[in-house]
């Protein structure tokens, strides 16, 4: 589904964030992207989101070169991806419901369908009872789960998460990771960037390890993993 083919990313000023990175992530797979901070995890995710473009090499998404998307194509590319941020990027000027409904509002889903899907997503993360509240009133863990609900509400093919457990205690972190695992088990491809190695080991899934912009290990799928059931 995602192919990095010898990808390098150099930022203006000469900093090399990624150096000749090649790996492949198959449809339905779940993998962790690990490495120290500054190893290039965020840059890699930004390349998949088309927030940045590679300086060298190609990033392919379903066989399409992301460098050729063009300004018009980028929003439609992003609609196929769900993203979870460390700072959850919720909007505090609207209710939990409206936050989660944002991707559906963007694609112009009809109101009853929107309500149904938002409630399903909120139910999945266990926060259906919060739908009318403002996210500012929720705890960090709850906010993160709202962010996850927003990321999956439009049924994306791919779920990306950038340090989703960065600010959470171990128990909550495990809960969040289990959520991702559950989404993967219904067929969503998941890539989670994290430095929480212990949690990763516990789940025993594929690791793509970056070190100073280079791929240290995990370039190929250990097993051709299909959707878990």
């Amino acid at each position: 589904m995602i192919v990095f083919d010898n990808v390098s990313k150099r930022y203006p000023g000469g900093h090399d964030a990624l150096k000749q990175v090649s790996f492949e992530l198959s449809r339905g797979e779940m993998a962790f992207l690990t490495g120290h901070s500054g190893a290039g995890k965020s840059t890699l995710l930004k390349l998949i989101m088309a927030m940045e473009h590679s300086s060298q090499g190609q990033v392919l998404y379903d066989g399409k070169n992301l460098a050729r998307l063009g300004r018009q194509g980028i929003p439609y590319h992003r609609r196929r991806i769900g993203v979870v941020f460390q700072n959850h990027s919720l909007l505090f000027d609207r209710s939990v419901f409206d936050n989660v409904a944002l991707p559906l509002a963007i694609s112009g889903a009809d109101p009853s369908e929107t309500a149904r899907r938002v409630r399903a997503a909120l139910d999945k993360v266990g926060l259906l009872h919060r739908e009318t509240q403002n996210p500012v009133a929720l705890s960090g863990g709850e906010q993160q789960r709202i962010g996850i609900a927003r990321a999956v509400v439009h049924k994306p093919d791919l779920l990306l998460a950038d340090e989703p457990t960065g600010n959470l205690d171990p128990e909550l972190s495990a809960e969040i990771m289990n959520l991702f695992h559950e989404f993967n088990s219904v067929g969503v491809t998941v890539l989670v960037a994290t430095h929480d190695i212990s949690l990763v080991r516990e789940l025993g899934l594929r690791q793509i390890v970056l070190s100073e912009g280079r791929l240290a290990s995990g370039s190929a799928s250990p097993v051709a993993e299909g959707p878990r059931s």
Partner: protein
Amino acid sequence: MNRRVKNKTKFVRLAEFSPLRLVVWARNHFKVGRSSLVRLRAEPLQTGLTVCVVAIALALPTLLLQLAGLGANALSQIGETSDINVYFDLGVQSEIVEERAQAWQNDSRIASTEVISPNQGLDEFEQFSGLGSILAGFEENPLPYVVRIQPSEQVLSRPAELQLLVQALDAEERVDSAILDLVWLNRLNSMVSFVDRLSYGVGFLLALGILLILGNTIRLTIENRREEIVVIKLVGGTDRFVRRPLIYAGLWYGLLGGLAAALLVAIVGLLISMPLQRLLVSYQSSVALPDLSFALLFKLAFYGALLGCAGAWISVLQHLRNIEPQ
């Protein structure tokens, strides 16, 4: 290969215009329009000030234009009475005046004559100027006999001949002066066209001002919503989706400003209608004051909305592109 790509684009375009897309499109616009109005209401001070500025900037040229229209209207009526007033010396007997008027009546250059006695003159003066009480202070009527002469069409169309006629009348015995009110007429005429031009000039400048003010307001809105815009772009919002509420905000500012401008014009019209009416009567003109018509209301709202949209567009084009998720 090329052909296949072409066909594909065509198909996509067709799909974009299906009825379902239209419904979605209309629903989105309705929702966005309503929510941007709700957002304006959430910031009453900012909204109120912006709307006031737009209203004043629209009302000013409108009032000037109305004034010019009023002047032109009055002028067309005055123009019909391009009489020569022949003022006799004080104390001239009425028989002499009548006799003279009769003689002038036979002149081919003169269409008609009308004798106005000092008493009639006094009545007219009182009626039109409202200054009758001043004259009441005089023991005798200070006004002379006047013969009002309507020149023939032929003469009226030839300024040189008209001038000769006035000079001849002026030179007659016992005549104090013969006056054709053309100078005054010309002056008024050029004043009206000046105000007319001025209102367009002022209108143009103020329209530019509205564009800048609304552009700046929308720029501030964009700054305030930077975070929201970034999130929307991250979850796949198109430029159009981000732009839409901002354009609607501009539209509402302009539309509300236009309606408020109509209100201002109506209020100012009410305030000046009485004295203006009196002024017009004193010029023997009965021009109806322009009412605040639906046409004007519609026009102001329309131009306001148009300027609002344009201002928002300018701002959006300048500032929105730079906001990208980092």
